């Protein structure tokens, strides 16, 4: 048995705005990429090969699924023209379809199935032709059955069209409430209807109510409630005293404190009401806290605290720096690079000298342990160009002409919160932790975080 998936760009295009940067076929449904449900189904139905055919770009899908060895099925890819009908697509893949029976799934469809049912023998015995159809597509079978059977009763699978955000939401809720045991859902499940990924921090005061699915690298802060029927993606922070219920929080999303997300989809800074389709951009994630905080006074205090901290470090590092800098310089291990970096103010950049210490000798190791590579940057704190701790300065590159919007609360600094927390220092993971502290830090916490950063850089 083989499976041929025919999905046209026109059918999935509507998802692109909702999940920018994610190929629609990889969009997560209950934290599992859409395509994996179809791969699972194809395998259950006895397929040893699967071909994905589309008129759209499949590059990201290929990168994700590769040749299918992860699932023990051979996955290949094909192209088609937008006007091609199913018959033409079969012709274009004749070699693939030639010898064995082929299940043809056409359209951007979700197939409801139950992993405990027996599909391989069923598909082998079904007569050829269309098995099921809906306005958005169909599932059909080619070739002749190998075993004799009567006409099948109701088929143990059905189709759900995916053509709007409302359907996407409904389907996710359906899986949560009735179908969690029907599919393979990612995460660790110590009890029924509860799937939790790796590196998930849940404090005692937080409340989790089943059914729930939580991804990897999730921080749920104190007194938060994850109420029933919620899907929390990966790299998500739910800040304190917020309530999530009947909602889907997509990967890489920060939910500010004291918020109530009910029957919504939160994706990055987008909040969507799946019933009406209304969406808003949450330009500021900590909506209610701004009312009480005096930002100006806070900023001045922070600058003073950071300057004092920097002065302390300069005094501490001066002697080692004076000793080691010339030695490493002579050994050619002290590398400097001057680069423009964003300050966070539009159109204003700052030139910083970044130092890297190379080699493994005693002098290098000692200099690295003392973070001497950041020594000269500390003077920028005194003149107020950099913070002591905040975000790693983002270099100005032709590729990103201005600071991306995702860098909310960006504050270039000598040390970064990501370093303090031992999170990956680049990429989306770092962004999310820096984002969190950009909203949350206060000057005192900053000093503690700087100590942590220094300590972690030593090890």
């Amino acid at each position: 048995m083989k499976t041929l998936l025919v999905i046209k760009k026109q059918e999935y295009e509507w998802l692109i705005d909702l999940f920018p940067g994610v190929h629609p076929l990889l969009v997560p449904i209950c934290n599992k990429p859409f395509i994996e449900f179809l791969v699972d189904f194809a395998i259950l139905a006895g397929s040893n090969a699967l071909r994905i055919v589309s008129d759209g770009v499949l590059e990201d899908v290929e990168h994700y699924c590769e040749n299918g060895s992860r699932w023990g099925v051979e996955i290949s890819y094909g192209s088609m023209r937008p006007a091609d009908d199913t018959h033409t697509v079969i012709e274009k893949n004749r070699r693939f379809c030639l010898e064995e029976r082929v299940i043809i799934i056409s359209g951007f469809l979700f197939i409801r199935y139950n992993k405990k049912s027996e599909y391989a023998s069923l598909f082998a015995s079904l007569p050829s032709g269309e098995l099921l159809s809906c306005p958005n597509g169909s599932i059909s079978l080619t070739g002749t059955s190998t075993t004799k059977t009567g006409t099948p009763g109701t088929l143990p699978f059905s189709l759900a069209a995916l053509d709007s955000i409302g359907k996407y939401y409904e389907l996710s809720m359906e899986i949560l409430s009735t179908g969690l045991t029907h599919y393979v859902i990612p995460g660790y499940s110590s009890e029924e209807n509860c799937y939790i990924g790796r590196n998930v921090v849940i404090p005692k005061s937080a409340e989790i109510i089943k059914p729930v699915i939580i991804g990897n690298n999730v921080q749920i802060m104190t007194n938060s409630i994850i109420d029933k029927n919620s899907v929390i993606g990966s790299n998500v922070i739910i800040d304190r005293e917020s309530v999530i219920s009947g909602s889907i929080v997509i990967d890489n999303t920060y939910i500010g404190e004291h918020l109530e997300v009910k029957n919504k989809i939160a994706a990055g800074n987008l909040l969507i009401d799946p019933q009406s389709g209304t969406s808003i951009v949450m330009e500021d994630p900590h909506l209610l806290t701004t009312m009480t905080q005096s930002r100006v006074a806070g900023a001045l205090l922070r600058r003073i605290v950071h300057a004092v901290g920097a002065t302390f470090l300069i005094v501490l590092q001066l002697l080692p720096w004076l000793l080691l800098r010339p030695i490493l310089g002579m050994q050619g291990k002290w590398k400097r690079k001057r680069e423009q970096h964003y300050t966070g103010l539009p159109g204003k950049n700052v030139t910083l000298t970044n130092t890297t210490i190379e080699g493994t000798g005693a002098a290098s190791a000692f200099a690295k342990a003392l973070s001497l590579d950041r020594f000269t940057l500390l003077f920028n704190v005194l003149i107020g160009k950099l913070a002591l701790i905040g975000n790693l300065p983002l270099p100005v590159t032709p590729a990103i002409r201005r600071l991306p919007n995702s860098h909310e609360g960006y504050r270039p600094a000598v040390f970064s919160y990501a370093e303090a927390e031992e999170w990956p220092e680049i990429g989306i993971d770092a962004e999310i932790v820096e984002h969190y502290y950009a909203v949350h830090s206060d000057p005192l916490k900053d000093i503690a975080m700087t100590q942590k950063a220094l300590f972690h850089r030593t090890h």
Partner: protein
Amino acid sequence: MIFHLDTSTTLPLGVVLLKKRVDATNSIELQKAFAQWLQQTNNFVFDCTELDFIDSSGLGAIVSCLRKALEHHGDVKLAALGPKVAMVFELTKAKKLFSIFSECSEAIQSFVTVSTT
């Protein structure tokens, strides 16, 4: 934003028509103007018919208007919230602080009902 004193009922009511956006650029303006309006009445209806967008500073300004009105034993009621604006109020639980009406006239009427009973 446009302010007018509604005298159609027994109670003098400040009706404020909010336009397009209430955000960081005009939230302070709203708070300043509100202090002026407070000298004329304590009870307000914010008509959001023409309001398309609100951010946290806008929300903060409206909440601070409510707080001031409550200090003067008055109230701020909201009317005719568009879907996007309603979502912000719902998300932040600010919805619970306000009486919200779908029509401006209903909001005006509600003041009268309360004051007569």
